[in-house]
């Protein structure tokens, strides 16, 4: 029995078997429903308060910046869909890397702002460093149980992997923290003090936070 409820569909792609269970479906539904909000609305107008003459000012985003950001937001969304549905630990880490990468790009492609570049650089550093715990954790899980598939890992008795598996889980958690956990922090730092790009900050928050709810399910699947 999966801790995430009944499994609806399974997509067999060789050794990697993505699946959709009740909890995954809920997460996916939330993701898509909430993502529709920023896609269908323009959050680009804001009031600049000037004491003498209040004025309404449109955000200055060049079409080029908007285009690359839309593309990266799409990648980020697809990556988080993958994170939610994947059925394999290593595949999960790769989707997570894609997610971190595109979120870092969303921050870094802000035009006319050195601080955004600074934040993007540090987010990129975090992603780079996080690849040690991410891949290392997956490798330890593979070594201690002989498989990477969540469907097989779930069938193992509790405590099967011993300390190696426990340590692998700790490393994996640290990796998820570094790759996705700090996303909102850097997004907010750029968002609050510098420029208005609310709709993309929204995407970063959503994808990174929902990653955690999926990761909790993975943690409870592991023996």
């Amino acid at each position, binding site marked *: 029995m999966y801790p995430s409820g009944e499994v609806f569909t399974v997509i067999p792609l060789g050794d990697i078997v993505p699946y959709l269970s009740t909890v995954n479906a809920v997460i996916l539904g939330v993701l898509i429903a909430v993502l529709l909000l920023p896609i269908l609305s323009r959050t680009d107008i804001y009031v600049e308060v000037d004491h003498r003459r209040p004025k309404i000012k449109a955000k200055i985003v060049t079409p080029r910046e908007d285009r690359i950001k839309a593309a990266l937001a799409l990648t980020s969304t697809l990556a988080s869909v993958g994170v939610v549905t994947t059925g394999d630990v290593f595949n999960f880490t790769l989707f997570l890397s894609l997610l971190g990468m595109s979120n870092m790009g969303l921050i870094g492609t802000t035009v006319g702002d050195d601080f955004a570049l600074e934040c993007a650089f540090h987010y990129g550093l975090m992603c780079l460093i996080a690849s040690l715990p991410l891949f290392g954790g997956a490798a330890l899980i593979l070594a201690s149980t002989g498989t990477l598939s969540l469907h097989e890992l779930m069938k193992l008795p509790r405590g099967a992997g011993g300390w190696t598996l426990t340590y692998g889980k700790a490393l994996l958690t640290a990796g998820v923290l570094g790759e996705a956990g700090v996303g909102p922090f850097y997004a907010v730092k750029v968002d609050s003090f510098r420029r208005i790009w609310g709709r993309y900050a929204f995407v970063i928050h959503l994808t990174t936070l*929902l990653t955690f709810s999926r990761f*909790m399910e993975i943690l409870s699947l592991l023996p």
Partner: protein
Amino acid sequence: MIVVDTVLGLLEAFFVGSVYLGLHRKVIARIQRRPGPPIIQEFLHTLKFLMKEAYAPITAAGFLYWLVPVFNVIVWSSAVTISAVLEGNLLPFFALYAAYKVLSHGAGVSAGSTYTKIGGVRHAIMPAGELALACSLVSAYFITGHADVAGILAWERAHGPLIEHAPFSALAFFTLLWIDAPYSPLDPSKGYDIVEGYLTEYPGFLRGLMCTAEALKFYCELWIFQAVFLGVSDPATHLLVMGALTILLAVLCAITPILTPYQAVGVHVLVASLMFLDALIR
């Protein structure tokens, strides 16, 4: 039958949640030597707002602005339904909580004012509350072997409340309650909500919806805490325990000064790393 149960449960959550929010406010007022509003004030206030006409500022990002309150109510209604009414799986709660954070950011951004935007951003900058939540729910699963509330309650009837087995997880979840309580020192968007909260630009009916969502959220979090960690399953005791928790939270909120945003983030990071180390040692 499920429909009737759900509707009744939601009504109960709304009523109890808003009354306890009023109690929270009253206790804070008494500690600060003010008379404070009547306990039922929050409830009436929400009802009043729900009757009012709604409108949007000229700068609002239309679609997002109108739908954030609706989504907020949907999110917390489903959270209450899944956890409190159906006693189902706890994992969706986490996703719904994350969606709520994102929606608050959306509420701040969509109004088109730089001030509400800062409020929303400040609310969304608090990531570590969720990490503590994740750690506590996962360790609850590891100890009891159940991810659904009904299973955890059954386990607790046999082995005693979970707070004895996982005190740190209980503490983490309690920190979350503390962060999410009104006037909490750990969430800087709360103390400044009159000028730069994410709710500032929401008038009338929309404000009423937001208040409804807040009441549902307060109820839902209190309910999950006392069900998962204290193992209370009897309806009358529920209300008492939740009242006691509310008073405790109010005292904590009243006697602590509000932190600046980065100090708050620092505290969150500290709490989350403690939780992480605890989970590592376990």
